[in-house]
């Protein structure tokens, strides 16, 4: 069992607060991704788990033991670095064996483990190569093998695919996911690439300005973002300005709709994904709009809609559905209450 817990950790550099009183519990064997724009504190959070930074406040608990003050070499966690950080003077075999030597493994054990690792990342043929004799993708595989070799309780990955080209990145995403399944280890993955996060993770923690805005699985995160930031950061979203009288309803263009929410401000923002906007009468929440444009985008088509007060709404639908609407036509759209959210504006 390896349970990782961050309890109220904060970290400042100079006068700027990078991580702000952050709590996070990571389950055993989980693939957790910390997702956020650059400068949101995700890498700093990872570095505090690895031990390269010490939190100003709070605790990092590994199996209920506070490791926040331990140096990196005393923590049973390993990191895959963004720039690979392979030791340039050592060959592939020596790079992978480095962590094993520190664990004082015998020669035969070390050799066996190195071969296992090389097989795992399919790099057997490169055993005696030096890092500069390999491509970025190959170096990344070695970096992963090196980090896994000492059998850490938790594997930390700091934007490991950031430097690879798109095609290789897709392939490595798949392989990492497979690796996670095979190893049954806890992975903490840091990225700013939402698609990468959505495809690979069990759970995603979306970070912004030093705090976690939402922690949930990919699907919940996509369909029901908890905050306006998350809604805007992930995927495409319609954010429609609405008026609020009480927590049981909202009004839009002089019509009041019943909808329970927790918002207390006078003005709110209604969220709905473009693909969830419907032309069928599936709900009580109905709005009159005019079709401004219809754009064909391969596997789907995009409607640009405009309301009476001039607010823009995007609707997408599968291009296999027959096109029955024309530009300039007035239509009614229906929003399912299960698929909308209301945030403070």
């Amino acid at each position, binding site marked *: 069992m390896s349970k990782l817990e961050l309890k109220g950790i904060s970290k400042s550099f100079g006068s700027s607060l990078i991580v702000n009183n952050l709590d996070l519990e990571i389950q055993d064997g989980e693939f957790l991704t910390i997702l956020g724009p650059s400068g949101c504190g995700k890498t700093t959070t990872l570095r505090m788990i690895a031990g390269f930074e010490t939190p100003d406040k709070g605790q990092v608990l590994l199996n209920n033991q506070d490791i926040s003050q331990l140096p990196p*070499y005393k923590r049973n966690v390993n990191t895959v670095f963004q720039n690979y950080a392979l030791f340039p003077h050592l060959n592939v075999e020596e790079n992978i064996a480095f962590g094993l030597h520190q664990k004082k493994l015998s020669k035969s054990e070390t050799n066996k483990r190195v071969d296992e690792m090389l097989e795992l990342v399919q790099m057997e043929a490169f055993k005696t190569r*030096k890092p500069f004799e390999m491509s970025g993708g190959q170096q990344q595989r070695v970096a992963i093998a090196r980090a896994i070799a000492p059998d850490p309780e938790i594997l930390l990955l700091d934007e490991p695919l950031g430097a690879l080209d798109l095609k290789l990145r897709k392939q490595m995403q798949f392989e990492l996911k497979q690796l996670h399944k095979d190893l049954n280890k806890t992975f903490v993955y840091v990225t700013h690439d939402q698609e990468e996060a959505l495809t690979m993770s069990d759970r995603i923690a979306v970070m912004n300005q030093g705090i976690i805005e939402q922690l949930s699985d990919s699907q919940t995160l996509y369909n029901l973002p908890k905050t306006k930031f998350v809604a805007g950061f992930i995927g495409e979203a319609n954010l429609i300005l609405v008026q609020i009288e009480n927590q049981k309803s909202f009004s839009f263009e002089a019509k009041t709709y019943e909808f329970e929410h927790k918002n207390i401000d006078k003005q709110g923002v209604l969220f709905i994904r473009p693909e969830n906007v419907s032309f069928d009468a599936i709900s009580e929440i109905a709005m009159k709009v005019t079709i401004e444009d219809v754009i064909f985008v391969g596997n789907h088509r995009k409607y640009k809609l405009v309301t009476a007060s001039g607010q823009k709404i995007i609707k997408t639908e599968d291009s296999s559905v027959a096109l029955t609407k024309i530009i300039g036509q007035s239509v009614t759209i229906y929003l399912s209450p299960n698929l909308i959210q209301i945030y403070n504006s």
Partner: protein
Amino acid sequence: MKKRSKYLLIFPLLLWLFLFLVLPYLFILTQSILATDDFGKVVYTLNFDSYIKIFTNPLYYETLTRTFIYAIIVALACIVLSLPLAYFIAFKVTKHKSFYYTLIVLPFWMSYIVRAYAWKIILGEQGVLNSFFMYSGVIKKPLSFILYSDFSVLLCLIYIFLPFVCIPIYTSFEQISKSLVEASKDLGANSWTTFRKIIFPLILPGVISGGTLALVLTLGDFLAASLLGGPNTLFISNIVQNLFGTSNDKPLGSAVGVVLLVLVFLLLEISSRYEKKHETQ
């Protein structure tokens, strides 16, 4: 560009090298296998006596060995002093790095002789060091052994050649990415192991090239010994100077020069082979 015009462009450089490098060496080489008459005048007969003298007369081979030992001491001392200094500037200094770097290079702006004389002022019997010790009551009589001794010569040479060693070492430190140090610690190595296994191997080419430079420069130095040396401090270059001057045995002087040159070439070759072997990009 046509081939011929390429050669035309490089011609001034080749001419320069021929006139001021190749020609003098050829001259020295030729002179080293000539003889002298009773008055020290060079006679044009083939004669290897000079070389035989170097390897049979203890004055020559012992001085050559001693100079080598001095050079090794100077090179090692420069390396030992440079390592923490360069490490500090490369890894610990975050602000005003160029200021510290300039401090290392600063002595280059002054002439060698001025700096050597400065040590005379510091180390002499009436010098700064002795005055300070007398004043503070550590000693009653001024120490006389610190100037005009092996000690003062080596001290001066170490001081003069330190930047030559420090700069390549500093450059190699600078090239080490911080993430390599982090990766090493991440994989369980403490600071000392990280230095031994990761940092030191990566700066070794810099250490070798800096050390070789100090070694070679010390081998050819005669000023420090003549300004600060004692009666027994004799560098091989002092002998060469003497052979061309008062002793007036130009063939022997040339022969010593040739032997020294061959040794230096050997050293440079070994050093550059080592660097090639440890290339990392």
